[in-house]
């Protein structure tokens, strides 16, 4: 089936797929706790059972189960079981103040997914992870070891949860994954973490931040390379935050912050053009897959060509277009036009400028540092590094250093030789290496969980 929209019309640029930022977004748009909730919801396939609204006398109206309702329900349970009612306030102070409740088990994070005003950016962020998760869910539910008090709270919560209906919209992915390699690793790593719920809870936010960044970077770097088919990890070099950045490090310089910064410019123009070409009724496809689809239907060239001409006319662009009869060349024309409308000097220039700034601030800033003369570089701090090491080693006991580096690269994290040296020193300092011999090749790295 040809995926090209049957009636192409030049309209405003919109973007609802593959990336959580919108053109009106500025700074601090995401609440990452809420993103956690969305991932839990998706991976556990759990949602709240709507419950009878006590204020409604007819008993027909239903409302969503809120945190306050949960508190009430818990109080009832405990008062029934405690021989001293005065103990309830102590329990209340212990678990219901601050974020303590959310540290008991991941399912408590579902409270953070409730729809509220000003929450849409968070569900967009949730959708980005959903796109990585696709139809993945935990086959083995994480089993947190709880004490009998926490178990009570968990039981109360479970009473109000049900397994999501697979027929409902949320479960069926709206888009095919843009970066299948990233999606695979994300699912694999999450499965690994799900078996260690305590650790998962302690690093959940960092884990999502890490993947949000790696996804952003690899998406940006892979966009223009759509002709090569399914994306593969593109060079993206980091240094450790304890390292000195020097101007001479070619890989760090050439495939570091600058490369990423430039690549971010393509996200909105390319993705919005892609979306514009596809019928919103179907599952959205990434550009590379869409291109493969077009190539199978050479007859679509005319539609594409006309659309390009119309687009150029409406936006008053003077981009030179190829008049090839190859649908891929025509797609190329359109993507070029998509980008050209945001070119320097065009009226839309500021829109994309702002877009790139927001994307960098929201999804990359944890990994960017300014380093004097060397300029801005991509960095990994110790916490992220330990996390990445743990998920890269995964279910195995240990990995040979060489394999560890390959596991990093498979997730889009690259280190040059100098950083690799610093990595070994770091691992030695925290004591999770074993040397089989004095040779650098025979270093094994353990996970720290």
């Amino acid at each position: 089936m040809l995926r090209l929209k049957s009636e192409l019309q030049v309209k405003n640029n919109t973007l609802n797929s593959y990336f959580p930022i919108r053109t009106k977004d500025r700074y601090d748009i995401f609440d990452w706790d809420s993103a956690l909730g969305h991932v839990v919801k998706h991976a556990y396939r759990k949602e709240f059972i709507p419950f009878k609204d006590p204020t409604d006398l007819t008993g027909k109206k239903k409302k969503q189960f809120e945190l306050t309702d949960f508190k009430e329900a818990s109080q009832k349970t405990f008062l029934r079981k405690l021989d001293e009612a005065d103990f309830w306030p102590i329990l209340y102070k212990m678990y219901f103040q601050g974020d303590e409740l959310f540290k008991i088990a991941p399912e408590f994070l579902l409270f953070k997914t409730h729809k509220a005003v000003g929450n849409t950016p968070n569900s967009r962020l949730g959708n980005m992870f959903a796109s990585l998760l696709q139809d993945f869910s935990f086959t083995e539910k994480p089993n947190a070891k709880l004490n009998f008090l926490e178990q009570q709270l968990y039981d109360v919560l479970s009473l109000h949860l049900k397994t999501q209906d697979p027929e409902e919209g949320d479960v069926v992915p709206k888009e095919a994954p843009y970066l299948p390699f990233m999606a695979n690793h994300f699912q694999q790593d999450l499965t690994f973490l799900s078996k260690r719920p305590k650790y998962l809870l302690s690093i959940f936010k960092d884990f999502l931040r890490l993947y949000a960044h790696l996804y952003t970077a690899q998406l940006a770097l892979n966009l223009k390379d759509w002709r090569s088919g399914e994306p593969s990890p593109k060079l993206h070099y980091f240094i450790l935050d304890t390292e000195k950045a020097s101007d001479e490090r070619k890989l760090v310089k050439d495939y570091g912050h600058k490369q990423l910064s430039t690549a971010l410019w393509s996200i909105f123009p390319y993705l919005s053009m892609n979306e514009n070409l596809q019928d919103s009724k179907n599952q959205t496809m990434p550009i590379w897959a869409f291109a493969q689809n077009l190539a199978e239907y050479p007859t679509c060239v005319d539609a594409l060509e006309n659309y390009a001409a119309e687009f150029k006319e409406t936006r008053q662009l003077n981009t030179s277009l190829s008049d090839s009869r190859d649908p891929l060349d025509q797609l190329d024309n359109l993507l070029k036009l998509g980008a050209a409308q945001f070119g320097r000097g065009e009226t839309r220039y500021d829109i994309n400028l702002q877009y790139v700034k927001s994307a960098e601030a929201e999804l990359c800033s944890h990994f960017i540092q300014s380093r004097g003369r060397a300029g801005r570089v991509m960095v990994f701090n110790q916490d992220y590094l330990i996390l990445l090491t743990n998920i890269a080693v995964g279910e195995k006991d240990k990995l040979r250093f060489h394999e560890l580096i390959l596991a990093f690269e498979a997730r889009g994290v690259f280190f040059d030789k100098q950083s690799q040296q610093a990595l070994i020193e770091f691992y030695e300092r925290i004591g999770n290496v074993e040397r089989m011999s004095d040779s650098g090749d025979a270093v094994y790295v353990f996970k720290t969980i």
Partner: protein
Amino acid sequence: MLRFKSALSVLSKSSPYAVRTLHQNDNSIEDQIKNYLFITTNIEQAFKEALLSATEDDIIFLCGSSGDGKSEILTRYCEMAMFKDRYKFHLDATHSFSPTSNAIQTLDTLFEENRTSNKTLVVGINVGMLGNYAQEGAEQHDDIKSSIKSFLDDSPTESNHQFLDFEKFPKFVLGQNGYTAEFVKELFQKLTAPTNNIIRDHFEHEKTLTQAVDKKLCANYELLSDEAVQQTIIELLFKARLVKDQFLTARALLDFVFHLLAGPGYLFDNLFTGFDNELASKIVDFDPANIRTQHIDKFILSRSLGLPDHNYEVFVEALLLKGFTRSLAPESYLRLFYLLKNSEFANNYHLSFCADFQQDLIKKYSEVWHLHCHFDGSDEHKLALRQYYKDVAIAAIHKYNNRNAPRLGKGEFFISEHNGFQLAADLELKVHVPQIAEDKETKTSHFNTYFKVGKRIVKLPTNINLLSLMLRIVEGYRPNKHDKNTVVLLDELVEEIAEVANETSTLHILYKNDRYKIANDDFDEFEVSGL
């Protein structure tokens, strides 16, 4: 005759003789010295036996670190008539003979040729290289690759692939009565033997020179000839092995000896100032000049001020006769005292510092290691084990686990904290002797301790650093993030303890000065006390 220093330079890692290649025997003096120093090791014996019993389908891998002496052994055998024709020796697997192929490809070709040849293949290979080959080698050699993987995982390999690993023949053996280091000891003895010793001949010759005798070198050599001094150096090397995880290869050891004798200073200074020798650079951390006791501080102070001390003067005079200068820094004297701590010398002024140098860690480690690795089931042994767990292991774990909950008593373990409320539980933590008796692992680098936590049995591999940390915790030390490497092990255990504690049916809750107890009775009712 060569000058003494040139003769010794054979030992240096920068000497052309440091790396053995084929057809190198030129019978020069250097060659003779090297042959003189050659020590037949257990691994060589094992290698010889493997060669003799091998059939033509076999592949023998001699693996180790760079500088272990693989090539040294291999060259000896590949030149022997009885092996020359029936065996194919590949001396160094990291080498490739063609500029266009890398080591992996060279090995691929080598194995390919071997399939059709009627010779037994013998390969000298670095352990790291083995790992690389197991990953990247060609598909048609999957049988070899899987053998390599099994070997690296310590599981049995196919019978026609033999692996002889230098690490399986450790240079230090921890036994019933402390440790032994045959290889190092033999080397020191050969180096300083009083007769039939080509090296000593050069030393004697050096002393007879009328001009520009290298006095420092000669003094160092004489110092090293003292057996008690050798023993102290061996002890330091062992410590570097245990504490710093330093590999001791033959080449590094020879270079170390060269650095001790011909380094920039006197032997005792060379020993504790790293320079570019990998062993010495690890020993730097054990420098006795950094020990702070009242006696040592007083010595440094009075030497710096030049206060008169008759005994000291007598000692220095005696040193002078041995070829040492009078004007050493106080730190250097301390190092010398340390080196001589087991020797008699002059008026034995140095022996008064013995108590200050007393560091029992290795002794303690050997004792506890022996209790675990050679448990004989006797009552005496059990008693000693219980003592260790009670006084050190459990005491340290309890202190560490409850470091932020000082109000908890004996047998109570902290679990978690929520908004200032601390959760804790009673827990029985004790040694699990049957599991210790069953554990057959006897690696020098660690021993496995076993605890019974509630109903669970928990294993904690303990190395010398963890032991040292636990000893210090018992004494009142609070670990900080710089101890991270050993604390990780302790953290893991503590987490497991918390998990078991969390499962109990009675919890203590501590908040400021309040203390509550809540019990889950069998009827799903919670009984609270302490309100």
